[in-house]
């Protein structure tokens, strides 16, 4: 147990400081989001989100402490078992869970609800890291790759069954981890191209114009380049493929996506089309943030978030409160803190001496990054509305605990990085 007593000196206090700063700011903003001037409320009032959030934060402290006390080998050793357990729980949720806000993603324990999907991220990260770190794993091996995709696909699918699209999408961030661990960038590039085509298809109402554009590019390339048979065939096949993708995107948008999902995508592209209907969230969110100006309206002085113009203002749209009350300066600080945390995690990841720890660290970075990018992107109108929390800020116990676990398991692994066998 000697090595455990070294924890205070070996833990990465920079990350802990960033964590504490984010959690504290988050707590203050949860209070600001629900604050009612007339009611003379206290930030500690347990009937308010802020009071309960403080309880969650306290609990997070215990969780963090417990994580650092537990033997570091536990996480790698029990990764698959935990993964199995969480899959079973996720299967159970739609059956025994209670419905909150249209998503059946909660398990009730007394008056409290837990969201297993929040913990699934952390556990999947452990399992994926363990698999990547296992002896004989090769990223260029297709079977190994397939196994990884199945590993992230299973929880993702189960969460999709709970109709929690946002959390399910978080699991796509593991693809970035695979990329770091050696997967060919081809998949990423194809993905990015598909996304670009997807957005273009949405921006241009009639796909015919896109087909014509592709046709023109195809003719230009055919005429200008070398007239080799292989190249011409490839170009033709490529052009046909892209046209096919466009058609299928069009089909997906209009037939596969549910109307409210279609609207969220439409709202992103043109929120002014129906500011009171599907554009409401984005419009109100932008109004709240935009009204903050450079310096903000001041703590507890916001009108847009407090008076409920912004939906879910203490959870998914918590960033609006920051933008409104603390202006661009406040946004700068929060965005800066997040980027600093992400870079710090990458720094920690790169100093790990085994693949398990490094893959896990990258998983943490990618999950945080996904949450941060999608959540802030959605509130400023750069991304469709996808209901996922802003780590450490959004009100909610499960999410906070999930993120705390993600981060502190990493810190625990990092604290013991000198004691592990080199397996990179």
């Amino acid at each position, binding site marked *: 147990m000697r090595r455990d007593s070294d924890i205070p000196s070996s833990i990465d206090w920079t990350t802990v400081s960033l964590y504490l700063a984010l959690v504290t700011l988050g707590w203050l903003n949860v209070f600001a989001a629900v604050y*009612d*001037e*007339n009611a003379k409320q206290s930030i500690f009032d347990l009937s308010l989100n802020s009071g309960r959030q403080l309880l969650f934060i306290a609990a997070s402290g215990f969780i963090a402490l417990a994580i650092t006390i537990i033997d570091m080998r536990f996480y790698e050793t029990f990764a698959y078992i935990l993964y199995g357990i969480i899959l079973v729980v996720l299967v159970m949720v739609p059956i025994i869970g209670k419905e909150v806000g249209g998503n059946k993603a909660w398990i009730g324990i007394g008056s409290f609800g837990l969201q297993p999907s929040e913990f699934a991220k952390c556990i999947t990260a452990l399992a994926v890291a363990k698999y990547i770190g296992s002896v004989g794993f090769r990223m260029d091996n297709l079977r190994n790759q397939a196994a990884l995709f199945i590993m992230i696909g299973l929880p993702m699918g189960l969460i999709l069954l709970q109709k929690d699209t946002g959390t399910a999408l978080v699991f796509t961030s593991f693809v*970035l981890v695979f*990329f*770091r*661990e*050696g997967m060919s960038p081809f998949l990423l590039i194809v993905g990015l191209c598909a996304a670009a085509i997807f957005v273009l298809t949405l921006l241009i109402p009639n796909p015919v114009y896109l087909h014509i554009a592709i046709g023109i590019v195809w003719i230009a390339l055919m005429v200008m380049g070398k007239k080799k048979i292989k190249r011409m065939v490839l170009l033709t096949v490529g052009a046909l493929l892209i046209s096919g993708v466009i058609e299928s995107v069009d089909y997906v948008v209009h037939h596969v996506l549910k109307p409210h999902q279609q609207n969220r995508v439409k709202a992103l592209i043109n929120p002014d089309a129906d*500011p*009171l209907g599907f554009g409401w969230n984005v419009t*109100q969110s*932008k*109004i*709240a*943030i*935009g*009204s*903050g*100006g*450079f310096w903000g309206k001041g703590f507890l002085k916001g*009108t*847009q978030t*407090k*008076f*409920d*113009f912004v939906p879910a203002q203490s959870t998914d749209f918590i960033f609006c409160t920051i*933008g*409104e009350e603390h*202006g*661009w300066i406040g*946004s*700068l600080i929060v*965005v*800066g803190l*997040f*980027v600093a945390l*992400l*870079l710090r995690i*990458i720094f920690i990841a*790169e100093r790990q001496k085994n693949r398990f720890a490094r893959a896990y660290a*990258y998983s943490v*970075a990618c999950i945080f*990054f996904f949450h*941060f*990018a999608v959540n*802030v*992107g959605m509130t*400023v*109108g*750069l991304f469709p509305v996808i209901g996922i929390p802003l780590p450490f800020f959004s009100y909610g116990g499960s999410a906070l605990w999930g993120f705390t676990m993600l981060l502190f398991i990493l810190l625990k692994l990092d604290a013991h990085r000198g004691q592990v066998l080199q397996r990179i």
Partner: protein
Amino acid sequence: MNEGRKEIFQIVFVLVGLIFLVKLFFIQVIDNRYAELANSNSILRVVEYPFRGLIKDRNEKLIVYNTPEYDLQVIMKDVSHFDSVKFCEVFHLTLPELRKRFKDLKAKKKEYSAVKPMRFLEQLSAEDWARSADRLDEFPGFYIQARTTRAYTTTALANALGYVSEVSKEQLRQDAANIYKQGDYIGQSGIEAFYEEQLRGKRGVRFRLRDVKGIEKGSFKNGEYDTLSIPGQDLTTSIDLDLQLYGEKLMRGKAGSIVAIEPATGEILSIVSGPSYDPALLTGKKYSANFKLISQDTMKPLFNRPLMAQYRPGSIFKIAQAMTALQEKVITPETRIVCDRTIIGCHGPHTNEDLRGAIANSCNVYFYTALRRMINQGKGSDPFSDARIGLKEWDQHINSFGFGNKLGIDLPNEKDGLIPTPAYYDKAYNNRPWKFSNIYSIAIGEGENLVVPLQMANFAATVANRGYYYIPHLVKGIGKENKPLPRYTERHYTTIDSANFKIAVDAMQQVVDAGTGQWYAHLPDVVVCGKTGTVQNDPFPAHSVFIAFAPRNNPRIAISVYVEHGGQGARAAASIASLMIEQYLFKQTRRQYIEDYVLAGKFLD
């Protein structure tokens, strides 16, 4: 093979952070639109409509006041859980009506707004309001806006008071100072329009913070930007309400007008336009329906005859002719003219009257001759230029009585009347020459002359004052200062020497004591001076005209009465005028038979 991938992550993380900060800088610092939108979101502008000024009579009796009225407004954005069946039940609508209301709202493309209050139901009745006020919380997004509408203590004076209605699109367009908003009330005619500026007061605005459900969360910045509404100024009119009511009673069933003026001040004691309407008809919810009815009435009750009806003045004009001729010294009071009735007809048994006798007997030949001497004074080289010079001089005198141009009463739509000028005849005769023989019918108030009843009354007041008048006006006191507009305190002198008016006054007394007016206009205990007029209107019955003032010394009332198709001036108009004078001076009707005669209205028998 994994070289450089770490850097890709670092670059992407930093890049995304930068993109967010740039985007945030755009919406927070560069684009001001959002701050404004935030205000319109959370700050509710509550308009406080001011009380419109009250209108009182000369004895401080209330004539026009305000009564509360309630509109139902809707903010579309705030509407939720709308139960149309319940709504219809509360507001007594049918479902198709309700649907139509929503459709109409949406159809107003420009004015439609999801965030601004729009009028949904106008002017709820008191019962509707009482019933719905309790249940309004069942319909989020609907609010009651209280305003006031006009109410009247009397059915009289409709045309002088005018009416108030919603500001029209055209008026909004012309409202450069941006005082009015759609749905505001504005005075559309009468005193309400003329004194709109004084009556309207100033709207107040309160800014209230509210949350997304529209629930008020207190005042915005402690009411720093709130303004109180300022009530409009009260108006004290010069109307004697009792006299007015009596006049309207006498004019019932007749077309024409009565204008009574206090000569010493120009204050209008009574202004009756017949037929009239009940001013209460043009208020509140019934406005549109009633306005259509009233404006389509063939008797034109909205036509304000005292200042809009241009009539030939008839024989009352002979007084002005006499003054003009005396002033130009073409006759003296003693000049006698033989009533030969060759060129122009006459009536009655007189043969060779002096000026007073000519007025008392309304001798046409006398005034024809007097005008000929006045026009043809030999100042020109030939009859044509002579007539031109003479007419010009004649015009100056006649215009100085207030004929031929708007007097400037404090009511809109006053008409000029017509006093022909040389230019007028040039045009009428297509620039061919004309001379006295072409224009002589103006001598006896027929021909081209047109005057409005207000000018006739003002003329009576001018004679009563022996040579000057104050512009007749209806409002003698505005607001706390209780003064009329400055221009109503200026004397306007005629071009006639005061001494000459003595002759006119003598003659007018003679008309009532012994002349054409002796049967109907003569009053015991007071000397009335008057002049009858019977305006030819073939083939229809003549119009009956009478002007008068009383008492002869220190006159307190000057009056003109014009009864369309009333026959001889000595009957209908003289009776009404004398009853009005009696009512004003003695506060009673002492000759019931005359009143009965007037009320029966059979003047032609």
